[in-house]
């Protein structure tokens, strides 16, 4: 065990280099540079809130914020898992030549998305202020669901990246799956419009629970229940364990398949 920790510590600088590379390359040669990480979600949110305060109205108080908070959570999940999925295949050239702990590539992808998540979160706060919606003290609790979300996505990303090495089909399949998942997560609609059987299915989606926790503290001025928290923690831990296990079992085979 200590060998693993030592190895991780030795390569920890690599993690920050990889993350900063992702960010740098994304905004290279743009005038506003890194500012785009914040500006991008902010502009998107402004458009969405203008559209949705006038268009569709579900019976939800402050619908734009409902939608935006849902989007933050879901977009992070979809961005981080799909980029983590190609972490191993995308870095094939490196993995074939230099010894590096391979899980670092997956973690770095999830981390880069996490930075975008932080930016969108800031943008959401700005939008909330602009809309004169009240910021409650419960916002201070928002890191809890967000952390669970990041770890959950990391677990899923580990599984996906390991499986993708062997079966490239997963990449195409997963994008379809993500589209289905968008509608199985209450991003755009309130839970109350769902018929009973569908409600159960949507509740089975681990993202639903995390999203509801996030919304409670962000816009509903409520603290999530202990039950919700326990379910989320258990789901996260289970996916993390499966993720690392699958990854660990397969990592020596990666090089033969990339």
């Amino acid at each position, binding site marked *: 065990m200590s060998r693993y920790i030592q190895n991780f510590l030795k390569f920890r*600088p690599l993690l920050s280099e990889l993350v900063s590379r992702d960010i740098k390359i994304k905004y290279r040669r743009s005038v506003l540079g890194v500012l785009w990480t914040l500006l991008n979600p902010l502009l998107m949110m402004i458009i969405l809130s203008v559209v949705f305060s006038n268009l569709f109205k579900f019976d939800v108080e402050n619908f734009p914020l409902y939608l935006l908070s849902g989007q933050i959570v879901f977009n992070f999940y979809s961005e981080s898992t799909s980029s983590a999925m190609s972490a191993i295949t995308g870095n094939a050239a490196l*993995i074939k*030549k*230099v010894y590096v702990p391979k899980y670092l590539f997956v973690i770095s992808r999830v981390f880069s998305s996490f930075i975008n998540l932080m930016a969108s979160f800031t943008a959401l706060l700005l939008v909330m202020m602009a809309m004169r919606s009240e910021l409650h003290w419960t916002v201070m609790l928002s890191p809890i669901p967000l952390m669970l979300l990041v770890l959950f996505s990391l677990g899923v990303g580990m599984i996906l990246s390991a499986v993708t090495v062997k079966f490239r089909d997963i990449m195409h399949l997963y994008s379809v799956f993500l589209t289905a998942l968008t509608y199985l997560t209450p991003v755009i609609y309130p839970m109350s419009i769902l018929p009973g059987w569908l409600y159960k299915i949507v509740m089975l989606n681990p993202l639903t629970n995390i999203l509801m926790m996030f919304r409670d503290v962000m816009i509903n001025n409520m603290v999530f229940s202990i039950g919700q928290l326990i379910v989320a923690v258990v789901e996260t831990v289970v996916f993390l364990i499966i993720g690392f296990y699958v990854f660990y079992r397969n990592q020596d085979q990666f090089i033969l398949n990339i």
Partner: protein
Amino acid sequence: MEKELIIKVDHVSMKFNLASEKFDSLKEYIIKSLKKQVSYNEFWALKDVSFEVYRGESLGLIGLNGSGKSTMLKTIAGVLKPTKGSVSVFGTVAPLIELGAGFDFDLTARENIFLNGALLGYSREMMNSYYDEIVEFSELQNFMDVPVKNFSSGMVSRLAFAIATIGTPDIMIVDEVLSVGDFRFQQKCEARIRSMMDRGTTILFVSHSIEQVESICNKVVWLDHGVLKRFGDAEPICSEYKNS
């Protein structure tokens, strides 16, 4: 003086499943396993190779193309895990396999120095302290803020060589890299390798130039189609190799 074991290659065999039977898709895999067609076209790149290297020695690997030299180096570097047998390495390994492998061509040379250093497991502070040395050795003072994609291949390998040879790693892997750059730079690289050897670094050296192997290495492993043909002192084996 008691000689200190630094690399132990113990009955290593390495099997590859040839690409002809590789399946990338789930559908193919299921169909083929149902039909029981998942047969592999096996290829043994290394067959039961064993040798030992002691600290301070320098080992040359010789053999024709496809004899398993690079596979051997990759198992020592930890990139490949042997199918059978084991490789034990007692010390830090600095790989110099195919220069520039760790570069991101969109980043500038300066950024790549830190990225590449991190790939080798060096911290930012350490890279900062070696930074000037790297710039000076690679002779790229005026190009540090240029994206590497605009570099010539010679410039890339100069930079990569300068990064890979910082510090005093216990083991240094040099795979066909002295053939890059102009004559003067080649000499500079060779001098650098020698000074690392003087400081106690063990060199693993692969080259098709038997003269280079002869001049740098004192031990030689001769691989032939994945089989260890000879292992021992450099001189007799090199002359036998030349005559074969």
